[in-house]
């Protein structure tokens, strides 16, 4: 036979968080770790259901009720600060009419070790609490390292995007690149031209044939523009279906006109996408930069825009050269007409 004191001694080692409750509901013995939960006040002599609030199952209020709950999982809470949540299980105690309740911190372990200044010695050697604390700390450290890596990678990605000069869909220069190139040309103050090209009927392709078809058309159109311009020219995609071509070394009006005509001609050929015929065209507005004209890049593009607007108004698939009269012209297309008549 194991004596009463010996049993309590065993239990203190095996279950340092147990309490033994007598028939009146008072705690007659508490394991060493339970002692730490009561901020230095004696645990023995306390009423079990006053020291711990039973959260579940709810209806139990007497020792008799508790006895019937033997073997079921109990959810408890410390009735005084820091109101730690506890799990428990109850069985008949070592003596008649006694109850043995074994407690555990469950998930509140992380706060509990700090609140009660627990050490490894407060847990049974078989308790997984220390391993769990280890894992929480190890995982948090690993997560923190991963989080820092993610932040750095995200920063690098944003920086790379900001520094990118290429439009990923078409392989052409992007708006950022074109801004740089134009600024450099203006700084050099030599004669050059820009063509602002806007696709006609592209929205219809996108709407009726889908975005995949639209993307394909943009790729074909981009290739045509690169093929029909000179090696020294730069083609950039500056909007959804808007392009700017920068033509250095002072091209003549007729050379520029020839390039524009060829681009429009080639673009108008049907583009086949998955057996579907896609048809687009283009309107072009061109503007020259002459040395000493003091035009900014914005002003130069605005000039090309005015000419482009005139082409659109003239019924699309047209090209127009900028002239100051266009800004006030009632029929902006007249300029092209005039040009065509001249040539």
């Amino acid at each position, binding site marked *: 036979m194991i004596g009463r004191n010996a049993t309590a001694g065993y239990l203190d080692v095996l279950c340092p968080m147990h309490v033994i409750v007598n028939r009146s509901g008072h705690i007659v013995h508490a394991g060493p770790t339970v002692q730490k939960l009561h901020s230095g006040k004696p645990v023995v002599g306390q009423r079990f259901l006053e020291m711990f609030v039973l959260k579940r199952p709810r209806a139990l209020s007497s020792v008799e009720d508790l006895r019937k709950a033997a073997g079921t999982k109990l959810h408890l809470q410390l009735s005084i600060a820091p109101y730690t949540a506890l799990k428990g299980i109850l069985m008949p105690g070592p003596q008649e009419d006694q109850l043995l309740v074994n407690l555990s911190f469950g998930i509140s372990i*992380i706060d509990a*070790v*700090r*609140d009660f*200044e*627990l*050490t*490894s*010695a407060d847990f049974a050697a078989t308790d997984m609490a*220390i*391993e769990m*604390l*280890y*894992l929480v*700390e*190890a*995982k*948090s*450290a*690993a997560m923190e*390292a*991963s989080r820092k*890596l993610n932040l*750095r990678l995200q920063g690098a990605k944003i920086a790379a995007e900001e520094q990118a000069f290429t439009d990923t869909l078409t392989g052409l220069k992007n708006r950022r690149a074109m801004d740089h190139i134009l600024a450099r040309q203006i700084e050099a103050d030599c004669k050059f031209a820009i063509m602002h090209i806007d696709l006609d009927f592209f929205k219809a392709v996108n709407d009726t044939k889908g975005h995949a078809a639209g993307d394909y058309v943009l790729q074909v159109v981009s290739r045509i523009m690169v093929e029909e311009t000179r090696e020294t020219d730069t083609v950039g995609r500056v909007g959804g279906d808007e392009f700017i071509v920068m033509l250095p070394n002072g091209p003549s009006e007729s050379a520029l006109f020839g390039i524009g005509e060829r681009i429009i001609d080639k673009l108008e050929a049907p583009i086949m996408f998955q057996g579907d015929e896609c048809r687009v065209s283009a309107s072009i507005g061109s503007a020259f930069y002459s040395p000493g004209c003091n035009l900014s890049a914005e002003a130069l593009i605005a000039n090309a825009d005015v000419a482009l607007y005139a082409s659109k108004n003239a019924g699309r698939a047209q090209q127009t050269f900028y002239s100051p009269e266009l800004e006030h012209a009632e029929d902006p297309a007249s300029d092209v007409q005039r040009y065509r008549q001249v040539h």
Partner: protein
Amino acid sequence: MHGLINRAIQCFVTDSYGPEKWADAARWAELGLVDFESMLTYEDSMTHRAIDAVCHVLNRPRTDIMEDIGTYLVSHPNTEALRRLLRFGGVNFVEFLQSLDDLPDRARLAVADLELPTLEVRDHSAVQFSLVTSSSVEGFGHVMMGLLRTMADDYGALVVLEHQGGGQGSETISISLVMTEFAEGRRFDLGARMS
């Protein structure tokens, strides 16, 4: 080798000798980078080159550098998290020593792709132990020498360590425990929050 291991070498040099020395070593080793990322994996040869370069740049023998890395890992404020994780291994130095067998598994629980060198602890008596390490990194045993010496201080134990050499990637350290509670040791608060 895992970025955590490479990063440990980098941080050892940076925290002990300054970032310029590390930059020199990274250049000399032709790593093609200055910063190792702790959560990425790198070719083993980069780790070997990095260690060679650190010895060259600091002009110190490999055994010294390796032992200093071991000491750094468990004593520098920047690596406090690691010291804490090791302290979870046991409440006294002997328990800690016996937990080293499980260290690679413990590490894998935290970071699934982290492969640590194999460690095997043998008990010859209550006060006499040996640790056998096996790693592709030559001189890894010396890292463990530094680490064990510092952890013994941490626990307040007095130990005598001796590197007994080895071969084919395996190294043996003999550990004699002179006193378990020689000094107070450093406090280990289970509930301390790592920032």
